[in-house]
């Protein structure tokens, strides 16, 4: 009975003990995002605790984004214990109206359906944006339309880096309890390169350029609700061991929805990788107010002549988007060139870096 009157649009198939369900309802937490630790993955009250952090973090961002909501709607939402972030507004300029809250309170019974039935259902329908989707939409549009983007691409020979990684990966895992990834080298190389090109760590502030004090590299992570970019702080000062550990932890917690506001907001430069897909390269929109974002395509084999013999080499195409208000083409090109050199000479690049 409770499941049907659940106010959180939680799919009925989410398994949670009653105490967890009540708690989630009170705290305004979507149980479908929580990972259960009980038998058969049932959600226990303790599983909700860490999740509350991300909810409050998202809430804080949304406060800054100003949720538009009618007084009646807010009162109803508070009474029913439903969080406004989960509701899509249909009023003027996306204002959340009482009817929207009532709509959200209706039980949603998601049925397991075949693809075709699902398709029939979604085509020709209007899907209201959730607040989280709205934040992404607004920020991306703001970035695309206020920061003039210019794009640069270069091919990087990855053989040296891949071999270096293979040589150390086992010993590294023993020492740091985490498998080092190519991304970890990339993040480190980016941070060292930024030290050389501080404009890639800057933002437009009124009529000034503000060069941010720390080099915090963010990693774009795809979540169910949308993209989120947790950042590793002061990467230029960290060893690869610490970077790999922090990267693994942040990605895992991002997927579980357990990030803190600080971790989402501190980024000064972003790395976005689609290397797991057959995507050769892509252009990325800056994560405002940052001035640079690196896009990473798939590493693939390319034919090459080595000492007159036909051989293959591993190539990854890197893309760089910069805010032309701050960074000119020559600077961006020099940055990318420098990054390429570092990645192609991994021993020299990482030798000086204590693990």
């Amino acid at each position, binding site marked *: 009975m409770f499941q049907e009157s659940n106010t959180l649009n939680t799919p009925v198939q989410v398994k949670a*003990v*009653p*105490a*967890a*369900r*009540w708690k989630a309802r009170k705290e305004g937490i979507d149980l479908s995002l929580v990972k259960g630790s*009980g*038998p058969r993955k*049932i959600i*226990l*009250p303790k599983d909700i605790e860490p999740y509350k952090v991300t909810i409050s973090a998202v809430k804080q961002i949304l406060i800054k984004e100003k949720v538009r909501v009618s007084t009646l709607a807010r009162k109803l939402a508070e009474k029913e214990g439903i969080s406004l972030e989960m509701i899509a507004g249909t009023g003027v300029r996306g204002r959340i109206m009482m009817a929207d809250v009532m709509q959200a309170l209706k039980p949603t019974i998601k049925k397991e359906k075949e693809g075709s039935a699902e398709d029939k259902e979604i085509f020709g329908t209007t899907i209201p944006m959730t607040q989280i989707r709205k934040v992404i939409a607004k920020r991306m549009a703001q970035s695309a339309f206020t920061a003039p983007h210019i794009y640069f691409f270069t091919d990087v020979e990855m053989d040296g880096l891949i071999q270096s990684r293979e040589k150390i990966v086992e010993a590294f895992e023993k020492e740091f309890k985490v498998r080092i990834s190519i991304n970890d080298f990339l993040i480190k190389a980016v941070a060292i390169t930024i030290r050389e090109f501080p404009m890639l760590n800057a933002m437009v502030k009124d009529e000034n350029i503000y060069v941010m004090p720390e080099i915090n590299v963010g990693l774009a992570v795809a979540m169910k609700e949308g993209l989120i970019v947790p950042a590793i702080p002061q990467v230029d000062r960290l060893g690869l061991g610490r970077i790999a550990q922090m990267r693994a932890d942040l990605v895992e917690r991002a997927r579980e929805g357990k990030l803190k506001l600080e971790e989402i907001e501190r980024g000064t430069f972003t790395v976005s990788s689609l290397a797991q897909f057959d995507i050769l390269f892509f252009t990325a929109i800056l994560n405002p107010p940052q001035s640079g974002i690196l896009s990473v395509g798939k590493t693939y084999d390319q034919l090459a002549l080595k000492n007159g013999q036909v051989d293959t080499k591993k190539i990854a195409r890197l893309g760089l988007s910069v805010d032309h208000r701050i960074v000119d083409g020559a600077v961006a090109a020099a940055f990318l060139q420098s990054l390429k050199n570092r990645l192609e000479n991994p021993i020299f690049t990482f030798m000086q870096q204590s693990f």
Partner: protein
Amino acid sequence: MREITYAQAINEALAYNLENDERVFLMGEDIGKYGGIFQVTAGLLDQFGPERIIDTPISEAGFVGAAIGAAMTGLRPVVEIMFIDFTTCAMDMIFNQMAKIHYMFGGRGKVPMVLRINIGAGRGTAAQHSQSFHAFFIHIPGLMVVAPSNPYDAKGLMNTAILDENPVIFVEHKKLYATKGHVPEEYYTIPFGKADVKRKGKDITIVATHEMVNRSLRVAEEFAKEGIEIEIIDPRTLKPFDKELVLESVKKTGRLIVGDEGQVTCGVSAEISAIVAEEAVEYLQAPILRVGSPDTPVPFSPPLEQAYIPNEEDIREAVNKMKEYI
């Protein structure tokens, strides 16, 4: 403090009331010369004589009916039915007379009597002398149902039962008769409707009755070694039932196991589970589990009978299952 058995504790309460209240008398099969099948009334015939310690023929409906009449006219009978199994011979007396008279006479008639019965399997006495269907009596409005789990509670609750103006079903347990415990020599009463916390804990609540209390206490000690603290609540009277204390405990622990030797189907544990599900479901962090007898007659074969009785192993299994939710 001195230690006496559960049977001796009840005997002491009966003797005190016989001594101090001339309205009190006992009836039952073999309770006089033989001292009762479990020796609960041993020695009372010599002390109080055959007018007050009455051996009856095998005629449950007859002597229960006689006691109801005596109670209505001002006496305080305490009747022993040899085994709970035999109450079925007197069900009309118990359910339709004893339980109803106070109501049907608009409160102007009353039946202040005690019906002593016993439950529990394990003596190799087969399907008609080993049952634990005390839940029947809770189901019928108009009866008090008492379930002592140790000698101290048995004496205090018997004293209260004899004082009570209502018909009381006093449910004893065969396995408990020989168990010893500290019992004060002086007279004392234990109020009906007040459960007792037999062990404090924060992780799991076990509501247990009769011998299940002692079995649970032993299992709780084992789990305490691995850091799981089990709270054990003994309702002591099943009607009235102290739901406040049980709810308070479940709200604290979020996890409930109910242990009662009757069948789980429509049993004491079913009722307690339902109360908690209705009134505290939002506190539950795990499914409610019941430990009780299976839905079969009590087997005569000793190995099967042992498998039938809900014991420490069954409680341990329930706790292990519930542990996964901590």
